[in-house]
């Protein structure tokens, strides 16, 4: 697992100690993000403040919007104008962005949206949780649209995957969600920043800037006719299928001979890894599977692993089992599935996950 290997990494690029939330900002600016519109909410404020400070220095625009609704719609405008842009929030604000996300997806406008998850439901508290998994992967907005969702598990990945998110957003002309959480956001870790090329302004031929002497362009969020609607939805479906086919990302560790595999994403994967390594030391044939893309779910890889003999999956996540559905679909009956975790506000200890592994392996 990358996280585990970090200690052994040869230092090729200078590393900076960064809070997870700042690593997102740094990755974004590196990727050429020049527009940030957002509304304060804990536990993502360090990202907001990083952008407030650093984006103007990079020649970009930082604007505090009057709400997340406005923020995501400002993103819609800036994206229509061809800018690389980002907004961020936590659960209560992320919910409000559903409207904008479906609009961005419909109009095929790229954008990066960060959710630094806190414990809900409702206003909740600022403690960490992974309970916005469903909201991120299933939508939040109406209609048949789909965002790409990335689930980083370290400051380094927050940097790298945020950067990647901008490329994916442009490649597919689609919003990409970076699903982080309070724990990752607040954690400080060394981050290498120099290995990714610095992106400057990009030319997007579809962006509106005033027609000049060219034919005019229209960015639409609704089709004009029934035929156009059908055609539109067909095209979107094709694109979503392409995303599903080509953008599955995961990491598997010690899975070859594993009888039991822990499936976890994001910060929980970091904690679960300790438990897995501990159990291995105790002679239990346990492995670890970490989805990195949460949409599309890396079902091809997980299915392959269970088809090769792993009988038991233990899904550990800081929610009531929102990812279990995806795991079940991926393995398609080829393994038994148990879940450990609940709706957040609480940080797992490696020991309790270890005990779950031991208990489940004996069943």
């Amino acid at each position, binding site marked *: 697992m990358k996280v585990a290997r970090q200690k052994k990494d040869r230092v090729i690029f200078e590393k900076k100690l960064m809070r997870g939330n700042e690593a997102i900002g740094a990755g974004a600016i590196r990727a050429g993000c020049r527009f940030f519109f957002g509304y304060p909410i804990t536990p993502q404020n360090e990202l907001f403040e990083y952008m407030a400070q650093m984006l103007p220095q990079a020649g970009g625009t930082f604007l505090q919007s009057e*709400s997340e609704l406005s923020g995501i*719609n400002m993103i819609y405008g800036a994206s229509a104008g061809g800018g690389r842009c980002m907004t961020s929030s936590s659960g209560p604000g992320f919910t409000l962005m559903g409207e904008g996300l479906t609009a961005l997806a419909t109009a095929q406008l790229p954008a990066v949206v960060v959710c630094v998850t806190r414990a809900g439901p409702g206003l909740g508290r600022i403690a960490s949780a992974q309970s916005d998994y469903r909201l991120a992967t299933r939508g939040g907005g109406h209609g048949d649209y789909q965002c790409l969702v990335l689930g980083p598990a370290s400051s380094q990945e927050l940097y790298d995957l945020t950067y990647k998110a901008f490329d994916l957003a442009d490649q597919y002309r689609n919003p990409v969600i970076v699903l982080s959480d309070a724990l990752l956001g607040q954690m400080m870790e060394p981050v290498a920043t120099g290995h990714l090329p610095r992106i400057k302004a990009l030319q997007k031929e579809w962006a509106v800037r005033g027609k000049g002497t060219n034919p005019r362009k229209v*960015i639409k969020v609704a089709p004009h006719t029934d035929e156009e609607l059908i055609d539109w939805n067909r095209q979107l479906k094709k694109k979503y299928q392409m995303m599903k086919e080509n953008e599955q990302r995961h990491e598997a560790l010690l899975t070859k001979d594993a009888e039991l595999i822990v499936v976890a994403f994001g910060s929980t994967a970091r904690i679960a890894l300790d438990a897995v390594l501990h159990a291995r030391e105790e002679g239990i044939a346990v492995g670890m599977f970490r989805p990195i893309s949460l949409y599309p779910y890396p079902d091809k890889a997980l299915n392959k692993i269970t088809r090769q003999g792993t009988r038991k999956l233990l899904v550990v996540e800081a929610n009531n089992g929102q990812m279990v559905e995806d795991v079940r679909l991926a393995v398609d009956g080829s393994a038994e599935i148990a879940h450990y975790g609940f709706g957040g506000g609480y940080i797992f200890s490696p020991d309790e996950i270890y005990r779950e592994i031991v208990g489940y392996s004996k069943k």
Partner: protein
Amino acid sequence: MQRMKRVYAKPKAMTEVPFPYCPGCSHGTIHRLVAEVIDELEIADRAIGITSAGCSVRNWRQFDCDMVMALHGRGPAVATGLKRAQPDAVIFTYQGDGDMAAIGTAEIVHAASRCERITVIYVNNGVFGATGGQQAPTTLIGQPTTSYPAGRDPRTSGYPLKMAEMLSTVSPESYIARASVHNVKNIIKAKKAIRKAFLVQIKDSGFGLAEILAACPTNWRMDPVGCMDKIKSDVIAYYPLGEFSSQMKLNPEESLEQSEGENRDRPGTL
């Protein structure tokens, strides 16, 4: 045979696509004024229009410039983002009173307070036209709608919102005016207001908004002529015409206020 002199033509900033509006609807008149202003200011090549949800939702078909469709009420936020990305573009939103004064209140108030360099064409026809004539925040007291067939009662649904006045209190760098299109004289004034709402953006001196009092014959359940009379008698009585915030003062003789002895020509005869 002597060729006739052409005295009237479709503005260049307007496509060939016919209007989809009901007979007597003011949207068409207002679209034309916007297009004429775009022509006269020679900005069609750098104008970007932002549509809103309402009867005018598909007016990207009529304006011959780059266009972006926004969600219901969010036009000013979209315009804000777009202006940051394309600061040399001339950006206008076209919004109804449901769009701007109900669901989009937060967006317009803050765009105005930031004095965004954008132009807002705000069409106040006193109802939600597109959804079938429900009460808008602008519906007059006593005016029946499908939401409140017995008429608007301030005890249950409050008082009509005067957006131009309200926004002028939060937008010191701006041009904010209210005009009407109920007769030729006022149509000419409305065009002036629209022109200034664009100029204030182009000159980078502030936020521009032209509120235009408009008729919705279908949902007012009145014939077009009756609608124009109602604007003159009732609507203007509540929504006075004039400039409320002005970086772009009109000459006194150009004032937007309703004057006595107006000629009674109707839109469509322009």
